[in-house]
């Protein structure tokens, strides 16, 4: 198995693990971490594609490398925003659960406001 293929498989595993964590974990902080794991997997996959698509003599295709640096910055900003909202939620309510809906939404509605 070539190096690029190994990295590609690892990327797919990361994406799978991250998606599992994102869907199954009830706590928001774990969801944020899972999102970062998925992001890492996607960026790694992009790097693999850069390696495999490289022209003769080059180490890697430069365009995906530029794009994935941007992607890392975007994911970092997303994580920062999510953590900030989470911290404010904890300050306001003392808990970090996302579950708030009454089972039958037709009752008093989703918000006490």
């Amino acid at each position, binding site marked *: 198995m070539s190096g690029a293929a190994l990295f590609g498989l690892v990327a797919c595993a990361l994406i799978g693990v991250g998606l599992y964590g994102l869907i199954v974990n009830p706590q928001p902080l774990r969801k944020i971490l899972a999102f970062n794991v998925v992001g890492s997997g996607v960026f790694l996959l992009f790097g693999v594609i850069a390696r495999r698509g490289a022209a003769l003599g080059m180490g890697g295709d430069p365009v995906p490398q530029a794009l994935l640096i941007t992607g890392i910055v975007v994911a970092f900003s997303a994580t920062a925003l999510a953590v900030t909202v989470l911290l404010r*939620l904890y300050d306001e309510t003392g808990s970090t659960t996302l579950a708030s809906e009454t089972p039958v*939404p037709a009752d008093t509605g989703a918000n006490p406001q």
Partner: protein
Amino acid sequence: MTTAGGLLLPFAVLIPFVGAMAGLVLGGRNAPRVAMLTIATGLAIAIAIAATWSRSGATITYLLGGWAPPLGIALRSDGLSVAMMLAVAVVIAGIGVYARGDFDTPSAVREARAPMLYWLLLLAVWGSLNLVFVSGDLFTLYVALELLTFAGVPLVCLDGKGETLRAALRYLLYALAGSVLYLLGAVFLYGESGTLDIALLAERVRPTPVAWVAVALMTVGLLAKTALFPLHLWLPPAHAGAPPAASAVLSALVVKGSFFIVIRLWFDAAPALPGFTAAQLLGGLGAAAILFGSVVALRQERLKLLIAYSTLAQIGYLFLMFPLAFDASSGALVRGGALMGGTLQAISHATAKAAMFMAAGLIYKAYGHDRIADLAGAARRAPLSVLAFVVGGVALMGVLPSGAYLAKKLLLDASDATGQWWWEWVLQAGGFLTTSYVVLFVVHALRTGDPSQAPHAAVPRFQGAAALALALCSLALALAAVVGPVPWALLASALSAKEVASTLVTVVVGSVLAFTLARRIPSFPVGLFAAVGPSRFVMVTIGDGLARIDSVLRQWTIAGLSLLTLALLFGAAMRANGATCCG
């Protein structure tokens, strides 16, 4: 290859962001003034772009740094972009005028957090939307989409209460799940075609399994951000919990951004890829959204939640144009009447929904609550708001000569032309259901209330006027459209006997739905109530059943699984067509 007037495109994106930064620097009291100045400038730029485009008749292009794709990035503005940019500029202007009443810094303080932030976020949403409309490649679209989400999430929790913070976090996390799926799809597409530029992709994309997976993932990610059924778990609490001026921005504009990217993906980047089955699946999800959104809206007690659920239904309406744009002979999605109808519907919904949320906010101000059943006398207490709500709702029903009416006719024509008769039923049902919640509001609001009861707070006239102006824009859209690309004949028949009859039928059926499904209805003459009673029992049971399904679908785990299941379904649908088609 930068065309004349191309420089306007980056300015359309930059001016709102520059305004936001200037507002941040100049501080709390100056933020509204900077925002109004920016809105005026941005509106002028949007009009200039429209003028340039109509004069030249071709897509306006701007190459960033002078580098051409695939190495560089191109900004492109075709007719669709121009229309959306103009519409967004007008809606932002209307919301900006309205928000002067809600988000002015109190005179006692130098700077207050929520008022200042609202203006900055409004401008940021606008800049992100302009970037969505002019982006020429899928990665710039990803950045624009993320900008839009980051600007929209704080709008949800602007009041800082625990429940809205929770809604904002849920929105952010689900939106991030969607965007990471979109990015994964874009990565696959790059691997397949070596480019992410939309024009180049249109030439290079081939129906291979990687391309199917990529487009399926991207579509589902975008649907999660647009809150199409069943991926809508975040929308009702987010839009209903935000302050009214913020709800107007979220409902009218932010969801249109990801919807626009679906159009770009399906119509421009990979038109031959989805195929018949996938387009039907997308339309089917839209139909389900209309059904669930409208019925659960009717079961709501609070006006803002009713409007939020009606947004779900209207979003479903928007996706009906995808199956109708499918051209069987070429096996691809073509730009034509269906796309025009869908765009017109999107713009009508933007103006009308903004007006409705603004009206609901004013009614909340006048009453101190927004329980629909207790809104008697609203016509006297907040006349402009009630009128704005009714005009917006009527515009969305698609009965009068309004933008939505033209959109419905265009879509009906497309369903005739492509032989997909079943969508006609869906479009008609959508009209009935939309009518029902407008009728519900009207019935409660037009009852005479207690005249001695004083209003909870004063309702400034200019806010009501702003709401009404936007609602009237919905109606005026029809005229604007026939000046533009839509044939006059569609509008000319609006007042014929057949159309008037169908309007009456819509109002009657809508009223029946409202009276049988709503939670609380005003008291009846006894005889009539006896007839309505048993049918009401049946309908309420159905309505509650649908609401229960909706609440199950809105659990996070189920919604996450729906995300993945839909991606699989779309991929399978595309494969089903790709295996049989040209190849």
